[in-house]
C-alpha cells in the first residue's frame, strides 16, 4: 500500500468526498449537473457570436456556471487560508501549461465533458459513453505523461 500511495491516502479520499458533496448539493438543491468544462464555452458565449458558442445550453447556463466557478476559487482560497503554504507554486513549464490547457479545453468541449463531467457526473449517472471517455483520457494522459517524463 505504501508504495502505491507514498503521500498517504486520507487527504485524497477526503478531498474526493468533498468534491462529491459539492456536486451532490448542487444536484439535490437545484437539479443542475456540475461538470466543469462547459464553463469555458458558456463564459465565451458572452463575447462570441459563433453559433457553436451561442448554443442555448451555454447561454442558459452561463450565469450559474460563473457563480459555480467563483465557488471553486472561494473554496480553494478557504483551504489556502486554513493551511497556508500547503500548495506550492507549480514548476511545470509555461509552454506545457498553455499547450496542455489548449488541448484539454478543445478535447473536453469536443467530448462534452472532462474529468468532472464524464469522470464524476457521467459515471455517477451510470452512462457507458462517459466510462469509455474516462478510460480513453486516462490512457492518453498516462501515455503523454510518461512520454514527457522520458524526454526530459
Amino acid at each position, binding site marked *: 500500500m505504501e508504495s502505491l500511495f507514498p503521500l498517504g491516502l486520507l487527504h485524497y479520499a477526503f478531498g474526493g468526498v468533498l468534491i462529491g458533496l459539492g456536486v451532490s448539493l448542487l*444536484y439535490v438543491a437545484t437539479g*443542475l449537473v456540475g461538470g466543469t468544462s462547459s464553463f469555458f464555452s458558456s463564459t465565451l458565449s458572452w463575447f462570441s457570436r459563433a453559433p457553436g458558442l451561442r448554443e442555448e445550453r451555454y447561454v442558459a447556463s452561463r450565469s450559474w456556471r460563473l457563480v459555480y466557478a467563483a465557488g471553486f476559487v472561494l473554496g480553494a482560497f478557504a483551504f*489556502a487560508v486554513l493551511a497556508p503554504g500547503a500548495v506550492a507554486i507549480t514548476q511545470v513549464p509555461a509552454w506545457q501549461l498553455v499547450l496542455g490547457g489548449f488541448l484539454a479545453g478543445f478535447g473536453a468541449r469536443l467530448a462534452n465533458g472532462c474529468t468532472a463531467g464524464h469522470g464524476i457526473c457521467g459515471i455517477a449517472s451510470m452512462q457507458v459513453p462517459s466510462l469509455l471517455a474516462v478510460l480513453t483520457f486516462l490512457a492518453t494522459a498516462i501515455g503523454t505523461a510518461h512520454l514527457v517524463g522520458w524526454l526530459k
Partner: protein
Amino acid sequence: MSLARLLCVLAGGALFGLGLAVSTMVQPEVVISFLRLKDLGLLAVLGSAVMTTLVAYQLAPRLLKRPLLGGAFQKHAVTPGARTILGAAIFGVGWGLSGVCPGPAVAGLGTGNWPLLLALAGLFAGAWVQGRFFAR
C-alpha cells in the same frame, strides 16, 4: 436566479474547490506524478467523489419529486460516438502534458497558484476553437 439557488450553486462550487485543494489536485505536479503511476492517490479522489455523487444522483430523483429549490433534475448530456472518444483522447493528451484539468485550473487560482492562469488561458482558447470551428 433566486438568492437561495445562487447560494447553493456557490456553496456547491466551494465544496468542489475545497475538495480539489484538500486532495492537492490543484498542484499539477501531483497530477503528473499520478499519471506517471508514481502515486495512485488520484484514483481515491475519483473513487470517493464518484461514490458520494452516485448516492445523490441515484437517490434524489427517487425520493424527491423535484429538486429542493424547484426546477427539474437534469441529466448529464452524453452522446455516444466518435466525437466523445476523440475529444477524450485529445483531452487526455492535454491533461498529461500540463497536469491541469478544468476544475483545478479554476480552483488553483484560489490557492494563489498563479501560473495556472496560463493553463486557464489555454483552456479558454481551446474551448473557443472548438466552439468556433468544430461545433456539431
